[in-house]
């Protein structure tokens, strides 16, 4: 239930160009509307039934063996990192000296840092790759299976279906991030001590506040993935092959990540969607350093708007021949 509510709010706040499509209190839903038995409900009912389609979308996505496998891989990573750190420091050492993902040296002092380490380790590739798979397959996969034509003649409505697909992908972004965070937290709690959290700026906060900040970081990471989700959705509307759309999305992610590391290309880097991804670490400062976090949010909103509009323009005008 909470899952659906979360998704509902995600759909409601969508910045798609046709945000008002299913909404509006249409006066023509009165009983005397034309064409007796086939009146399409509008207003409140329509919105409730859109959440019904979203629920169906989430059930369809999360009941797939593939989705479960992707989440399974994400769940394994923090466990592996935790065990590796535990083995590495079993002789009393303080863990690696400077090497490895961010925060890895603090894990032995506080298991909560495994959450930050795992998110920092999975954010560059693993997390976005799973999002690329889900987003790339969202429309193209349905076209490939032929189910898209039946959804459209149901009629799901092209704008409505696209919004639901995007909302479903955003829910997956949150679910994937949450899986990493929760498994990291549990592993960290089992293998290492928990307690006060020393922030990057040196001050200490209570474990409860540390937990709260971990939650905020998970949210920031999930939101970081929405730009990619919109990009994948757009690519997904271009082709009838789910595999091609997934490969193209993931390939593009790798390419952009590489471009983001080439110093000679620094002029374009601030406009690349992963450029500010690791800014989530700034949530561990006191006071929080908002600059890059906000820039990240703005960039994700920009990508969502641009590629969401492109996906909408493409999907509402294309011939569905699959």
């Amino acid at each position, binding site marked *: 239930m909470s899952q659906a509510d979360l998704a509902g709010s995600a759909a409601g706040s969508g910045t798609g160009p046709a945000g008002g499509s*299913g909404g509006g209190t249409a006066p023509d839903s009165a009983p*005397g509307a*034309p*064409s*007796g*038995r*086939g*009146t*399409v*409900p509008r207003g409140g009912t*329509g919105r409730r*039934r*859109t959440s*019904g*389609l979203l*629920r*169906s979308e989430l059930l*369809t996505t999360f*009941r*797939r*063996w593939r989705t479960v496998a992707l989440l399974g891989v994400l769940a394994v990573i923090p466990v592996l990192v935790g065990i590796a750190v535990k083995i590495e420091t079993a002789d009393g050492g303080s863990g690696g000296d400077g090497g490895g993902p961010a925060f890895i040296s603090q894990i032995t002092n506080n298991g909560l840092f495994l959450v930050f380490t795992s998110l920092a380790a999975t954010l560059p590739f693993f997390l976005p790759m799973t999002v690329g798979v889900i987003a790339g397959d969202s429309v193209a996969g349905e076209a490939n*299976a*032929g*189910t898209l*034509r*039946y*959804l*459209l*003649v*149901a*009629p*799901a*409505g092209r704008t*409505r*279906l696209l919004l639901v697909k995007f909302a479903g992908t955003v829910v997956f972004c949150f679910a994937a991030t949450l899986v990493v965070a929760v498994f990291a937290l549990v592993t960290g709690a089992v293998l290492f001590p928990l307690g006060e959290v020393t922030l990057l700026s040196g001050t200490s906060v209570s474990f409860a506040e540390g937990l709260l900040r971990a939650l905020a970081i998970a949210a920031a990471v999930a939101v970081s993935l929405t730009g990619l989700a919109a990009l994948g959705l757009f690519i997904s509307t271009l082709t009838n092959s789910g595999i091609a759309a997934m490969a193209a999305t993931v390939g593009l992610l790798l390419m952009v990540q590489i471009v983001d590391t080439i110093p000679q290309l620094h002029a374009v880097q601030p406009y690349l969607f992963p450029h500010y991804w690791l800014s989530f670490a700034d949530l561990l400062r006191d006071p929080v350093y908002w600059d890059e976090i906000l820039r990240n949010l703005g960039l994700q909103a920009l990508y969502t708007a641009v590629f969401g509009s492109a996906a909408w323009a493409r999907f509402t*005008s294309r*011939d*569905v*021949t699959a």
Partner: protein
Amino acid sequence: MAQPPPAAVIETRGLSKRYRGGQLAVDGLDLAVPRGSVFGFLGPNGSGKTTTIRMLLGLIDATEGTISVLGEPIPSGARRVLPRVGALIEGPALYGFLSGRGNLHRYDAADPSADPRTRRARVERALERVGLAAAAGKKAKAYSLGMKQRLGIAAALLQPRELLVLDEPTNGLDPQGMREIRSLVRALAEDGTTVFLSSHLLDEIEQVCSHTAVMNRGRLVTQGTVAEMSADARGRLTVTTPDGAEAARVLKEHGVADLTVTGDEVTGELPPEAARRNEPPSEGARGPGSPGAGPGPDLADLNTALVRSGVRVRGFGVTRASLEDVFVSLTGEGFDVAG
């Protein structure tokens, strides 16, 4: 019904579709499907049937021309019309990882006019109607082709529909399943649902359809009632006689055209009036094609004339052309798919 329903459930004017490659798939189609009819949509592979069906359902845009379905323009009125239309397009498409029942729930959730409170009951009813109730819990990827086809039809029956568009509904079904689907189509038609049926099986069209249209190379070759179309298929007169040449001469005098003499068989085309008079009453066209026409006065006169001229007649009769003969005469004998 508050308003008088439009006479034609589907009406297209000058409908054309040119694909990006420049290929004209549908060319100036003027289709009119009367309300309450079972409309057989015929045509060889690649003749533009599926493109037409996809345009009717708003899946692809027409290059030119207009479409009206249930009185609403397509594609602009698609959201208002499509809940009243059930469709099976180019075979079923299913989520293999969902059960048969799960698939129907998914498709029903996509329809904003479908009431979620009655969903369970409607899904079970649709499963029962196509005989899938027992297999509804199985994953759809384990279904046979016939079962998938049934599930596709069930999806079209989730709500009471005014129009059903069924693209080759009996494809992949066993003979028993074909009979069931045909009787289902008849039952739906009796309830007042208009059925737009495309099929390659001409005897199927002859058995269940009241109206028909034939497409060839993107154009509409003919449309009308099945009875009219069968009537157009003028029967050929066949006379078995050892006096072939003499028989041909006599028959020609009486207006029989296109005479051919092969061995001891003389065949020819009856003059139009004679053919019509010798045709069984048009209601018969709904049943299986009846071979041979009843003995009309013209045939009797012809026979008398032959005998009077000293032709020894061994056999005499009219072989009525089947719908298949009409179809082939309209679309050509060629086996190659139109490019």
